[in-house]
């Protein structure tokens, strides 16, 4: 989300429908609709793209006019919020509780000391400890009208924003049409129904960093898929691989985590959180998901 890309959409005719492509949230995005009606496809594509861009504008920490920036620049003062923001904060709160503090949307400040550029730049323990002073979801107070963010603390919706956008896009698609639709925002995706009766969508899932591997092809009847991984974003020092998934409680990256986990769930945001929570289990990532009877693919 660090640079605002050109906002236009491109419609192409596919075998059994239309594909609408656009760029958002620093990812290539695609909507597939099983309809030969170009006008319908274009309208649906616009609706979905506008919704995704709206969410990007509202919750990107890199956009100075976003709600996120307003909260982060509030210097401890109370800030009014709307219903949507409240619901997102509520969801983040649930994730914090479920992970017992390992997943924390105020942990974004750690990104300043952890530069996941693939180098061996491991911050020193003192730096990490100092950053931890500015992390702690429990110090944030909010209700349906207001949020109070302590000074020097920041909130980051990066861990849930894209998946949320997929689910919102799906809601809009379902309001607009009963046709089969698949929304894919840079690999996090959802489908409302099978492409045709009992014919699944074929989805290629990229594994950046695995040069020999072709994209994994997954067939999805309906539901959502989300992938969490560190194929490109990690640090390597003394043969220890530090993933970009940080433990908000310790300020240190999770070690021994799979490089990538793809999870299936009814909604994309669920899939995304489950994938992230699983990565936070480190070596136990797979058994965590297996115990929950969740369908997933992990790459180590």
């Amino acid at each position, binding site marked *: 989300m660090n640079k605002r890309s050109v906002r236009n959409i491109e419609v192409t005719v596919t075998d059994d429908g239309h594909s609408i492509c656009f760029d958002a949230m620093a990812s290539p995005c695609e909507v597939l609709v099983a309809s030969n009606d170009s006008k319908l496809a274009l309208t649906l594509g616009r609706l979905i793209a506008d919704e995704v861009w709206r969410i990007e504008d509202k919750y990107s920490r890199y956009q100075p006019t976003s709600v996120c920036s307003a909260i982060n620049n509030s210097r401890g003062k109370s800030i009014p919020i709307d219903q949507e923001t409240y619901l997102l904060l509520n969801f983040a709160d649930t994730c914090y509780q479920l992970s017992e503090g390992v997943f924390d949307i105020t942990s974004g400040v750690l990104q300043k000391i952890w530069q996941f550029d*693939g180098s061996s730049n491991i911050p020193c323990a003192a730096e990490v400890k100092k950053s931890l002073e500015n992390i702690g979801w429990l110090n944030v107070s909010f209700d349906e009208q207001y949020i109070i963010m302590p000074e020097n603390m920041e909130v980051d919706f990066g861990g849930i924003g894209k998946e949320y956008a997929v689910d919102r896009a799906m809601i809009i698609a379902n309001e607009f049409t009963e046709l089969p639709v698949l929304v894919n925002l840079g690999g996090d995706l959802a489908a409302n129904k099978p492409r045709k009766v009992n014919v699944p969508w074929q989805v290629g899932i990229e594994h*950046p*960093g695995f*040069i020999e591997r072709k994209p994994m092809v997954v067939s999805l009847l309906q539901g959502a898929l989300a992938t969490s991984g560190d*194929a*490109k*974003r*990690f640090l390597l020092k003394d043969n220890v691989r530090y993933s970009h998934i940080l433990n908000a409680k310790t300020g240190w990256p999770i070690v021994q985590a799979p490089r990538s986990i793809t999870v299936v769930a009814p909604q994309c945001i669920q899939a995304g959180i489950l994938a992230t929570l699983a990565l936070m289990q480190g070596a136990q990532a797979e058994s965590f998901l297996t115990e929950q009877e969740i369908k997933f693919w992990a790459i180590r």
Partner: protein
Amino acid sequence: MKINSFNRNSFSANLASRTVKCSLFSAVIILVSGCSSLGVQPWERDLLAKEEMALTSSPIDSALDDHIYFSKEASSGGKSFGGGGCGCN
């Protein structure tokens, strides 16, 4: 390394080709020894990962070309095995 015996005749006869071979091999060895400074980090493989950057980006084209040139010229292989395989030569 110990060199016990030397076949002088074959040495002089093959001197030219040996010189070529030696210099090419030493080039390879220099590359090998210098290779620790060459290469990229795993996250820098964006371009190398592209299909068109594979050393054999189109195996079918290569197989067809190999077959044509194997049957029309005296040389074969080099990139991959140039063995037998058909009666076209």
